[in-house]
């Protein structure tokens, strides 16, 4: 037993950090300004092992477990300071690839995982899939039987990676209280990606609306058992949201606090550096404390996913609740330290923290998962 970070895990974090620092950080603000997706950058990250850490070795990934993957992603967040790209990469390499690896048929695994590991094919997923339909408004996608396949109708908003994706992992309603998971290729007739809206958050992660109109897919497009998404895919995506999508934010928060220290040492208010204020020092210490405390919750949740017992959804939800609050409070604090000139990572993190806390159904869902009266169940 080693309760703290051990050497191999530190190496994984450093792998992510140095790749983020080298490939992504220099262009982060530029890509954010222009809402740009850089294909070559993404390929570099795939080669460096960031985008495919969790894909099995057999398909060209690193074959990392969840704990190690989280370390890579935490490092990537810290090194890149890129909220959007971290999201895009984790959605592709973990939230799209892992369900295929874990729930897919051998044919599906063979078809998708190799090209996903190399970065040739980009996977896409709607933000709303993270909450099992908790926030779904009327316009959901339905799937009805047709011959041995299905016809998809409807649309998905805020589909992460959609503009550049090769395929889409979606759930569709197949009966009044059942949902089924599908993997649908972009070139399927009846699938269309709406032009980019003016995206206000995570601008380096391109999102758009995807429409399904008389979109016919064969039985090979179903992921897992038909009608079983709520028992199979949803808990998995929720668990990955609360670990893999959370991990870059831990790194980003670590970097934001560091920038806060730097700013406090450099910026003068009332003829003295901000760091001379006891209140500023205390605020920065409290920020660092939240980073360290969040780290324990995040890595515990990741570690639980690597064990053979079911992973506690409460513990993972606690990690997200805690880190979401920490990001909200600390980005604000550091942005205030920067004064009227808050810019770069600090401004982006402050802006995008809204997406972090809203995703997966937001705090309303987390509270019920953590404290709700419903009996604990496992699928």
């Amino acid at each position, binding site marked *: 037993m080693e309760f703290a970070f051990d050497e191999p895990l530190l190496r994984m974090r450093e792998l992510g950090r140095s790749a983020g620092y080298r490939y992504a950080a220099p262009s982060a603000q530029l890509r954010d300004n222009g809402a740009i997706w850089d294909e070559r950058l993404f390929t570099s990250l795939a080669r460096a092992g960031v985008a495919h850490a969790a894909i099995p070795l057999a398909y060209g990934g690193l*074959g990392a477990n969840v704990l190690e993957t989280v370390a890579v992603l935490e490092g990537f967040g810290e090194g890149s300071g890129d909220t959007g790209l971290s999201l895009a990469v984790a959605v592709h390499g973990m939230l799209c690839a892992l369900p295929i690896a874990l729930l897919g048929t051998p044919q599906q695994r063979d078809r998708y995982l190799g090209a996903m590991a190399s970065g040739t094919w980009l996977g896409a997923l709607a933000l709303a899939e993270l909450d099992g339909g908790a926030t779904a408004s009327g316009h959901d996608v339905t799937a009805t039987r047709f011959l041995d396949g299905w016809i998809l109708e409807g649309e998905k908003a805020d589909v992460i990676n959609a503009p550049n994706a090769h395929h889409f992992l979606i759930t569709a309603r197949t009966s009044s209280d059942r949902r089924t998971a599908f993997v649908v290729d972009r070139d399927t007739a009846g699938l269309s990606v709406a032009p980019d809206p003016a995206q206000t958050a995570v601008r380096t992660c391109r999102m758009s609306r995807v429409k399904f109109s008389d979109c016919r897919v064969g039985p090979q497009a179903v992921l897992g058992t038909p009608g079983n998404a709520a028992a199979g895919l949803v808990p998995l995506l929720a668990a990955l949201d609360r670990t893999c999508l959370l991990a870059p934010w831990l790194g980003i928060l670590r970097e934001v606090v560091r920038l806060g220290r730097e700013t406090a040492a450099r910026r003068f208010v009332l003829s003295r550096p901000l760091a001379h204020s006891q*209140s500023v020092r205390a605020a920065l210490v409290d920020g660092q404390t939240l980073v360290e405390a969040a780290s324990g919750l995040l890595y515990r949740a990741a570690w639980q996913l690597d064990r053979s017992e079911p992973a506690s*959804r409460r513990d993972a939800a606690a990690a997200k609740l805690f880190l979401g609050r920490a990001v909200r409070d600390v980005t604000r604090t550091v942005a205030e330290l920067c004064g009227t000139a808050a810019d770069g990572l600090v401004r982006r993190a402050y802006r995008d923290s809204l997406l972090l806390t809203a995703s997966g159904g937001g705090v309303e869902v987390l509270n019920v998962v953590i404290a709700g009266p*419903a009996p604990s169940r496992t699928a």
Partner: protein
Amino acid sequence: MDFSIDEPSRKLVNELDDRFLRGIASRAPVTDEVGAIPPENWREIAQSDYARLFHPASVGGLGADGVTQAMAMERLARACPSTFWSATMSVLVCAKLIHTYGDAEHHGRLLEPLLRFERLACFPVVENTSGSDASTYTTAVRRDADGYVITGEKSRITNATTADLGVVLARFEEHEYGWCYAFVDLRQDGVRTYRMHDLGLRGMPWGGIVFNRARIGVRDVVPVRLEEFPHGMAWGWLFISIAAIAIAQNALDASIAHARSHKAFGRPLIHMDRVQEAIAEMRTQIDAARLLAYRCAWHRAEGRLAQDLVGMLKPYATEMAVRATQHAVQIHGAWGLTHGYPVERMYRDAPMNVIGGFASNRLRELVAQDLGLPTPYQDFDWLKATGLDVDCAVHPGALLSAGR
């Protein structure tokens, strides 16, 4: 809009302040220690204009404006919050209930001794089952051969063991309203009282009252709609808020005095940013709460219910005061939690205001209703069929590491 008060009001408030600071404030520690309000306190309040401030000339009062009333209340609350609660519950809340719901002619006999502090009143509402959910209350007034009797048990009552008169909220089945205020003489055989001990406001006689067929005069039962209840209670929420503001102000003054006179690392504590930050926050939030309290008092005294404003004030002011006493403890260090030091008493007194007279969350629900957000009560199993109510059991890690 005008934030000033006129010269006569200012003078009146200053006189009260002088009087209360000399006597009642100096006895506050011992009031807390022995758990009873000293008789001198009653004498001194009775000699002041305190009671008359709140009432119109028609019942012998001064008819002061709301802001002056609020200022006067804060003066007494700063001197001793236990005494303030006890006195104000009787002379403001109960007296107003009597002259609002009673008739001047018949109930003047109840009112006058209260305003002279010869008798004390209490306002029993809550019962043991559940704080503010009136549907669980069972105490009831029923007719018998000679008039009315009341039976049931009320709890968490200010002045329970010292009051002579109870203004009791009770069920009253014989009337279409279903509820009444009963003016009950508590000095009779059918009434038993007991003391409850709490974390703070220890000088105040909290407790329960058991009515066992206690008698009530026929004209002393006033039918009332349950919806009317907040009208009476709103004065209570206001004075409790002022108690909180007063405690917070005492905590601030104590903190400034301590921070000016104590040094650490070679300089006065007041020179430390973190101390200034706490003081700035306390001062700002106390001012915000006080101005809101003035506004509530102004509207109330002008005859408006202002339920939404008072409902917002009470959670804000009372929770603010808890934060203020916590800041004071941080600034005082160990002295702040040592028995016998004033800040320790403030720290114990402050949360009583949060809980007393409807807890914060219940008040928030009332305000939400006023703001167009009613409280729905429905059965639910929110997570059902979403997949969010199941743990992830596909063991990604096991499968992944098997691949290595």
